[in-house]
Structures are given as structure tokens and as C-alpha cells.
């Protein structure tokens, strides 16, 4: 048992003290603080006017001497447009010149008639907030003019355009209201991404570690000292602990960043992510599914790492495993909008997909507790089976050196490690 802890702490500390680990962790923590303070940073940048020149955009309105310019100005100011609109009598050619010089940002030519005609000219045809604001103001102007010509009063006109009351409700027990769903979605989205990333990152680390030990031939000394199986499990546990600690650092950093930031979490920018209504069970399930997913994939990674002779071959052999993780992330991300779809429910019980997909269901739906428990049981069983199988391959694989690097080598590795 002592050698288990020796390998465990060696695996843990060499990685924890490595430059790449410290730097990644610091960058991520800095990222959290940046994210949390993004709204105030953006607004202070906007106020300082670094990106907007003088800040204010200008629109010229040419109406050929009618009342339309004044009406449009009134409409724009009622809509709280964030640019200045000025009436002008200059002809189009001069306005084009002004546009090119950058004196104005856009101009519009209005021609009275039924319907109203407008020509909006700006320097680029890109999507601009100004164009759509102007368009809807012109539309309102047209509506008002049409109502007037029909002899409708203002309230009659308003009644004509009143929106209907539309509410959505779901009667299934596991369903949450649309509002709750969109609140949960942001957090679940981020956590699925984090899970996906962490599982790939750490199981890759395992495969690289094993392949490095094998290619540097130190493996032969290691497995003549302790059993390959113990070595494999101690290594997986050591790196897994590192993963948990990194996640804890991230969690703590995110919490501190959000608490200390001047941003209001319940509104504006953060309402998109639904941080105001974080459910503690969602976080706990995320940790649990990270652990399970990590152990499952790390076992597979150790097995694959043990049959390559050169580090360069690791990625190639890891490809099928990567595809499994990527596929499960596809299912999970597409399930964000339809968490109750059949394919989501079914795949959430397939062990290689469970960590992401079942987490999605737990996070998005109120499913009975036996469902995640069942999937966890299936996963534990798979991990045990894979551990048993992986240990057999590992035992022979680490002694096997050769040029051919394919999954067929798994069979050779088992034969080599066999008792007979």
C-alpha cells in the first residue's frame, strides 16, 4: 500500500509543480476575474471613447422640404436612439462626399407618398444598430400616416397593433417552466463545457504519462518494483486528485470573482447564464460526473497509452476515444434545447455518454433520482470491467515494443501479459 501512495504523490506533485499546470490554472483564474468584471470593463471602455472616436454617430435626414424630417426626428428621440439626427437640405451628391470624408455616418432621403419611400445610405452595408433603428422609426411613421389617412384615432391605431398575450406551460412533472429552463441552461452549458474539457485534458494527461514512462523505458523498472495494475490505478488516482483540486480552485476563483465584482449578478449580462438561481445539486452532480467520466476515460487512456512505443503515436491511437467524447458532447449540447428528446434519454444510460448527457438531464430536468443513480451504477460497473480488462492489457502492453501501432496490438498485449 505504501508504494501506491508513493506513485500517487509522485504523479500528483510532478504535475502540480509543473510550469504548464501552474500557468494554465493562473490563466483560467485570471479569465474568471475578467469575465466577472467584463460588463464594467466594457462600459468604462465605452465611456472613455477609445473605440468610438467622438462617440456620437450622426445621421442626416433629407426630406425635400416636407415635414417628414421633423416627424422622424421626433420618432427617433421617442425611441431613445443613441445617435443624433439632423435635418439637411444638401443634395445627395454632397451627402455622399460627406459620408466618404467620415463627417457623417449615414443619411436618409425621405419622399412623401403612399407608401412612404426612404433611401438609407451608409458607408458600409454591415449590420448596424442605426439602420434597424431608422427602419423601425420610418415604419412607425408610415403606420401613423396610414392611420391618419384612414381617419383612425390614435387609440384605434394603437389597438390595431396591440400584441397578443402568449404564455407557455408544460404539464409533465419533470418539466420546468420555460423561464426556469433558460435560467438553468446557461449554467449547465458552462458546466458541460467544463466537464468535456476536463475529461479530455486529464485523460490525455494519463495517456501521455504512461507513454512517456514507456518510451523512456523507465516503465520496466517501475513494473519490476510494483505491479502494473497498482501502478496504473495509483497514477489515475493521483492525476484525478489533481483534476479535482484544479476544479476546486476554478470554483473558488469563480465564486470570489463574482462576489467581489461590481457587476449585478441578477441582471444584464449575467441573466443570460442564470447564475442568480444556481442549484447546489447541479454543482454536486457536475463534480460526481467529472469523477466518473474521468475514471472511465482515464482507464481507457492508460490502456491505449500502454500499447504505444513512441509518444508520437499516442494521439493517433487516442482518436477513437476522442471521437467518443466529442460525440457525447454533441449529444449534450444539442440536448440543451430539447432535454426531453428520446435520443438524449437513451444515450444518457450509455456509460461513455453518461457523464455529459446524464448531467445535462439532471441539470435541465427534474428527473426522479433513480435515473441518475441507475446510470451511475452502470458506469461504475463499466469502470470496474474496464479496469480489469485494462490491467490485463497494461501488464503486457508496457513490455511490448514494436513498430505497428493499432488497436490490434491490444490482443498481442493480452497474450504477452498472460499467465501462459
Amino acid at each position, binding site marked *: 500500500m505504501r*508504494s501506491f501512495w508513493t506513485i500517487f504523490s509522485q504523479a500528483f506533485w510532478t504535475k502540480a509543480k509543473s510550469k504548464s499546470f501552474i500557468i494554465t490554472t493562473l490563466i483560467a483564474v485570471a479569465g474568471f476575474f475578467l469575465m466577472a468584471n467584463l460588463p464594467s470593463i466594457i462600459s468604462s471602455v465605452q465611456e472613455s471613447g477609445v473605440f468610438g472616436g467622438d462617440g456620437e454617430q450622426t445621421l442626416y435626414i433629407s426630406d425635400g422640404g416636407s415635414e417628414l424630417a421633423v416627424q422622424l426626428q421626433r420618432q427617433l428621440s421617442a425611441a431613445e436612439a443613441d445617435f443624433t439626427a439632423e435635418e439637411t437640405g444638401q443634395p445627395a451628391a454632397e451627402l455622399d462626399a460627406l459620408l466618404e470624408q467620415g463627417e457623417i455616418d449615414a443619411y436618409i432621403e425621405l419622399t412623401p407618398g403612399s407608401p412612404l419611400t426612404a433611401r438609407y445610405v451608409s458607408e458600409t452595408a454591415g449590420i448596424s444598430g442605426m439602420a434597424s433603428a431608422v427602419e423601425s422609426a420610418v415604419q412607425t411613421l408610415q403606420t401613423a400616416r396610414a392611420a391618419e389617412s384612414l381617419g383612425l384615432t390614435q387609440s384605434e391605431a394603437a389597438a390595431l397593433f396591440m400584441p397578443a398575450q402568449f404564455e407557455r406551460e408544460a404539464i409533465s412533472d419533470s418539466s420546468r417552466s420555460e423561464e426556469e429552463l433558460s435560467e438553468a441552461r446557461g449554467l449547465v452549458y458552462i458546466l458541460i463545457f467544463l466537464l468535456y474539457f476536463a475529461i479530455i485534458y486529464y485523460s490525455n494527461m494519463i495517456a501521455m504519462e504512461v507513454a512517456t514512462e514507456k518510451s523512456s523505458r523507465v516503465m520496466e*523498472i517501475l513494473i*519490476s518494483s510494483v505491479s502494473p495494475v497498482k501502478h496504473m490505478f495509483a497514477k489515475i488516482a493521483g492525476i484525478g486528485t489533481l483534476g479535482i483540486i484544479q476544479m476546486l480552485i476554478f470554483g473558488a476563483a469563480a465564486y470570489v470573482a463574482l462576489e467581489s465584482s461590481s457587476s449585478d449578478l441578477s441582471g444584464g449580462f449575467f441573466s443570460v447564464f442564470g447564475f442568480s438561481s444556481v442549484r447546489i445539486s447541479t454543482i454536486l452532480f457536475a463534480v460526481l460526473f467529472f469523477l466518473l467520466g474521468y475514471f472511465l476515460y482515464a482507464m481507457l487512456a492508460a490502456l491505449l497509452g500502454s500499447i504505444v512505443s513512441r509518444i508520437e503515436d499516442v494521439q493517433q491511437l487516442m482518436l477513437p476515444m476522442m471521437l467518443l467524447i466529442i460525440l457525447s458532447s454533441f449529444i449534450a449540447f444539442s440536448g440543451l434545447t430539447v432535454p426531453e428528446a428520446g435520443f438524449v434519454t437513451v444515450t444518457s444510460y450509455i456509460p461513455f455518454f453518461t457523464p455529459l448527457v446524464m448531467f445535462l438531464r439532471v441539470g435541465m430536468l427534474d428527473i426522479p433520482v433513480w435515473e441518475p443513480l441507475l446510470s451511475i451504477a452502470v458506469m461504475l460497473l463499466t469502470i470496474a470491467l474496464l479496469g480489469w480488462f485494462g490491467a490485463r492489457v497494461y501488464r503486457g502492453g508496457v513490455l511490448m515494443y514494436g513498430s505497428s501501432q493499432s488497436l490490434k496490438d491490444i490482443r498481442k498485449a493480452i497474450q*504477452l501479459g498472460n499467465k*501462459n
Partner: protein
Amino acid sequence: MTLEVREATKKFGSFTAVDSVSLTVREGQMYGFLGANGAGKTTTFRMILGLLDPTEGVIRWRGNPVTYKTSPEIGYLPEERGLYPKMKAADQLVYLAQLRGMKKADAKREAAAWMERFEVSHYAQKKVEELSKGNQQKIQLIASLLHRPSLLILDEPFSGLDPVNVEMLKSAIMDFQREGATIIFSSHRMEHVEELCDEMSMLHRGEIILDGRIRDIKRSFGQQNVRIRSDFPLASLQETPGVEAFTPTKEGAVFRISDESAAQRLLSKAMQLGPIRSFAIEEPSLQEIFIEKVGRHHA
């Protein structure tokens, strides 16, 4: 209280890497294991270490199979050098000794002492990949014996070393044996085995073709060499009965003879020809025996 390998065979599929090899190494003995590349030395060692299970046969160390329970008693230097390239030399030694059941503090102290002895103390805090091949080999040897194993298995310990370092490692290994360790080591360099071992086995294509005490092997080989140095030509002596081969040298000649009586005849004949400056009966080197045996085996 010995290492005993009885009729051990290892097959990989249809290929027989080791074919019913038997050997006995007494406790405290230095045992040589000779063979060309691919003869089956490493596979035999891996079976002794328990890394591979023999297809047939039995291997016992002090009456029991080698398992991970006996791991602290055994030290191993693999043929392909194996150390963590990115780990500091001292840390590496301590880690590997801990895996063999040594306490960390003891391992640190012992590692420092050994590095002192091998004159590599100043590399203790350097990464192994920054060390020269010879110095890496010293670290590798320290790693195999730091935990004071009672059975030390060295697979080609001197390959790739300069003569000064070979001597340094040799004397360390001999000291270690004097302290009571049983050592089995392989080499394709016959002179190392001749110099260090009392007993040996010669392995060829998975089979033992020769084994026993080196002195007995040489005696029973029958052939001996007679080296004569003189100032007059010796070519006429090759007609002497019992002389099998004649090789002129700068200062005289070497005669291969089939038995010792031929040596006496050579001596009296040579003295009749004129004054001789030296006359010596030389035992055949293992090199010659090996070439002779392997050649005959696969003629």
C-alpha cells in the same frame, strides 16, 4: 538459498525465445550470462523478475517465486536504460528506491553517498536528460542497488561506457558482491564475464550451449594456446605433432594445441632451434570458445 531456474521455456506465439533453460546461482555468487543480441538473455531476466511468466518450467528465489512481495530484495538494471528524462537525478533515485520499499530519508542519504562514490554529486539536481550517457548509466546502476537488494540483476551493465567508468562500475559491483549480494549479469563482452564471474552460462538462440565454472569450461574445451617469443623464425615448428594452428606474430608465434603434451614437445623443439625469450601456455578466451561453440552449433 539460491536462485534456481529449472527448465524454463518462454514462447511468444510460435516463436520460442527461451528453450528449457536451467541454471542455479548460489547465494553471494557473481554469475555471468553470455550471449549475442537476441539470444534470450533479457527474456530470461524478465522471467526471473516475474514480469513474464514462463510457458513451462519453474523459477525460484530462496525457494519462492519472485513476486511483488519480494520486490525490496531485488534490484534490476534493464538493458534499455530507463529513467525519467525530465526528473532530477536525486529525486529519481529516491522515488525508485521508495518503490522498492525503502524509507525516503534512508534513500536520500544513501543516494547522496553513492553519487559521491561515482563522482556525480554535482549532477544531483540536474535533469537526467542533461547528463552524459556514462553519467546516466551511473545513475541507473545506483537506482538498481540503492535499496540494498540481495539479488541484483544487471542486463548489459557496461555497454556504452568508457574504460575509466567501466572500472569504476566494476569495482562498485564487486564491492557489492563482497557485502553479500547475489549478482547475475549479462554481457556480450566475454572479458567482463571472465574477469568477474566464477560461473556462467552461454546462451544461443534461446538455448544454453555451455555452462559451469569458467575454469572447468576452459579446461574441458581442450584447446590451449602456446605463445613463444624469439628472434628466429618459428614456422618450422608447426609440423610438431599436436599443433592444430599456427599464427605468426611480430615477436614470435602462437600455436593452438590439442593437449598439454604438445606444449612440452614444442618447448624442447624450440630450445633446439635457438634462445627463446618467453614461452607461455595460455588458456583459451571465452571469446574463442563462444565463437567455436556457436559456429559448431549451427554449422
